[in-house]
């Protein structure tokens, strides 16, 4: 037999068939219901807004790669993370948003938040949220007129606030005139393209959980903590629970953005601490600021993630205080 050369490598020699691209593709698939629902609710303009965001995110990454003198083949071989970022940014705007706002948000998210810090996996905060935050603050004057951050009546008849803004401002939920079912379906509401229809988000959530891309526990813990803390802050009035969960961008952020791998802790306990704190911060800030602050709450908590991972390190197997030796059944 001729002496053939084989590939040498370290163990293990078999690997799971999932990969980064596949995970990102799953996230994109899970966002499709929200995109479709947004198109149905807010009309055809949703499509150019979202596509523009995605395109500018992808182009930013490729241009950055080319500017940093990567070979062309490597520069265009992008993992789908920038598509996800662009898609999330597009879905988190109001449909009437000025065309340059999502573009700027995507460019900021990819160039400043992701690529400068070292590309995929090295960003400190969630790029999509940071991009959204950037344009929200930069165009605050503009956004109160038509609310680029996304709180406006989609029909443009009455420039007004979202149900959440109404609730928070009036301090009561009885005079907003919106049923929980409407909140859930996203009917007759002002809001952002992807955030309004909760049922679409729910479909995405179920898909991600089944594909095991995200652990189903974390969004639930986040939502429950936010709801319960809002209830507690309002003198244990449980009527606050469902509206606080269903309104604003909370659900969207909880499922698609707060669960971003890079900006969450890496252990079960770390994540428990993270999502509970996130819920407390969200509810607390919401009540304190009287406005939708999920974006800021998550960005704030993102920064603490490395510390959580530093503090919460699991004990290796066998590090135990009490040794069960010998067990009763073997004492014969």
């Amino acid at each position: 037999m001729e002496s053939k050369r084989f590939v040498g490598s370290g163990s293990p020699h078999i690997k799971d068939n999932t990969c980064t691209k596949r995970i990102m593709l799953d996230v994109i698939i899970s966002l499709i219901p929200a995109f479709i629902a947004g198109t149905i609710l807010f009309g055809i303009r949703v499509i150019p807004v979202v596509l523009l965001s995605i395109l500018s995110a992808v182009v930013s990454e490729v241009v950055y790669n080319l500017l940093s003198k990567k070979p062309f083949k490597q520069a265009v071989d992008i993992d789908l993370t920038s598509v996800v970022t662009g898609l999330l940014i597009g879905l988190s705007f109001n449909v009437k948003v000025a065309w340059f706002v999502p573009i700027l948000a995507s460019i900021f998210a990819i160039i400043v938040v992701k690529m400068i810090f070292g590309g995929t996996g090295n960003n400190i905060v969630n790029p999509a949220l940071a991009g959204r935050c950037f344009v929200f603050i930069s165009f605050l004057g503009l956004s109160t007129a038509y609310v680029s951050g996304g709180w406006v009546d989609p029909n443009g008849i009455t420039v007004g606030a979202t149900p959440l803004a109404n609730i928070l401002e009036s301090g009561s939920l009885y005079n907003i005139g919106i049923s929980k079912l409407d909140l859930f379906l996203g009917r007759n509401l002002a809001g952002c393209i992807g955030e309004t229809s909760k049922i679409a988000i729910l479909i995405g959530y179920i898909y991600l959980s089944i594909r095991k891309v995200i652990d189903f526990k974390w969004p639930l813990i986040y939502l429950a903590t936010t709801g319960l803390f809002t209830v507690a802050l309002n003198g244990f009035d449980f009527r606050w629970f469902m509206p606080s969960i269903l309104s604003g961008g909370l659900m969207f952020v909880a499922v698609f953005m707060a669960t971003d791998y890079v900006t969450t802790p890496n252990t079960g306990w770390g994540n428990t601490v993270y999502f509970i704190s996130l819920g407390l911060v969200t509810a607390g800030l919401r009540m304190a600021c009287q406005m939708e602050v999920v974006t800021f709450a998550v960005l704030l908590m993102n920064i603490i993630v490395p510390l959580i991972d530093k503090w919460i390190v699991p004990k290796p197997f066998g590090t135990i205080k009490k040794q069960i030796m010998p067990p009763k059944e073997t004492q014969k």
Partner: protein
Amino acid sequence: MAKVNLKTFHKGIHCDDNKHITRDKPIEKMPLVDDYFVSLSQHIGAPSVAVVEKGDTVNEGQLIAKEGGNVSANIFSPVCGQVIGTEQRLNKFGVPANYIHIKRSEGQVATLPDIDKRDAIAIKERIALAGIVGLGGAGFPTHIKISPKKPVDTLIINAAECEPYLTCDYRLMIETTDDIITGAKLLAKSLNVSKIIVGIEENKLEAYQLLQKYSDIKTVLLKKKYPQGGEKQLIFAVSGRKVPAKGLPMDVGVVVQNVATCKAVFDACIKNKPLYERVITVSGLGVNNPKNLLVRVGTPYAKILEYCGGIKDETVKLISGGPMMGVALIDTTGVVSKTDSGLIAMTEEEASLVQPSPCISCGRCAASCPMNLMPMYIDFYTQAGDYTTSIKYGVEHCIECGCCSYVCPAKRALVQSIKLCKAKLKEKN
């Protein structure tokens, strides 16, 4: 079959076991070849010292190298023949090592003397004499393992065989159940323990049913999960005892032995035959005729593959051992040693050749680590050259099972990082 409560350990991974390729193939005796290269270092510890010289005539089963230190083992000639000399060859890690080259000719089979009475000391001496080492893969000399410095109350027989593809232990259990149980009892006798527990994975039900007929040993059915056969994981699954971190099984009163080792003990004590052959699984989609083979130590891999119908052109990887912890061979010039359990030729379809990409901190490695470590940070700090910080994330406790690399979506070489880090830390001390 009645529903059984399957025992297991925490975390770990589920992967396709691919055992169907060879599970129903009876063990075949491989015909003898002309040249044998017997390594002097087939175990953990000091290399053995050759006791034969160039030109000597040796018989099958004759001592050709004796133990070369406290932790070492005797080595016997696999065939009758003439010693051509001691040669330097590259071992499977690519490091030069000494091999005794034996050219086969006709001759007699040498056996060990009978044992008069089989008491603890006699059995221990026989195991040491017969050169038995742990046949599960680690190759720790058995006579040292059965002389624990702490009191022991349980002998656990590792029949988990959790590595995908491998079926050699399974076939041994099916075909030589009696011998294995006798071997296990001899080991228990040498340890002065009465309790024997066999831990076996659920994908080996036939063997489990055969083992259940023995009323004086306890057989525990385990969940099919990798690394179920890891020593600490097996002890926990079978007895609920946790081996302390950096501790040994004897710290919790347990000694673990592999089924193939039990068979070797049986051969040495009852049949007076020292250890110079073992069963290996030749498998993978790259092999034309996958087989379970009884081969002599020192048989060149090329001859084994030839006997199994050769390998296909699509073969990209050749692995000595199991696919999770085995060593990738770059060519077929290697030879069988006592610790080889498999020879797997993989096509591109099975073997993962994807290049690593940046870590996305998904946390899957930590979620699958049976030792509860954080491989992503060990990798991160090792890549940065900060080996001491890795200790915080548990690098010293790693059993190198490969679960983290298996699940990594970015295909990062986490196990290599950990091995490098361990080596660098050792260098430092």
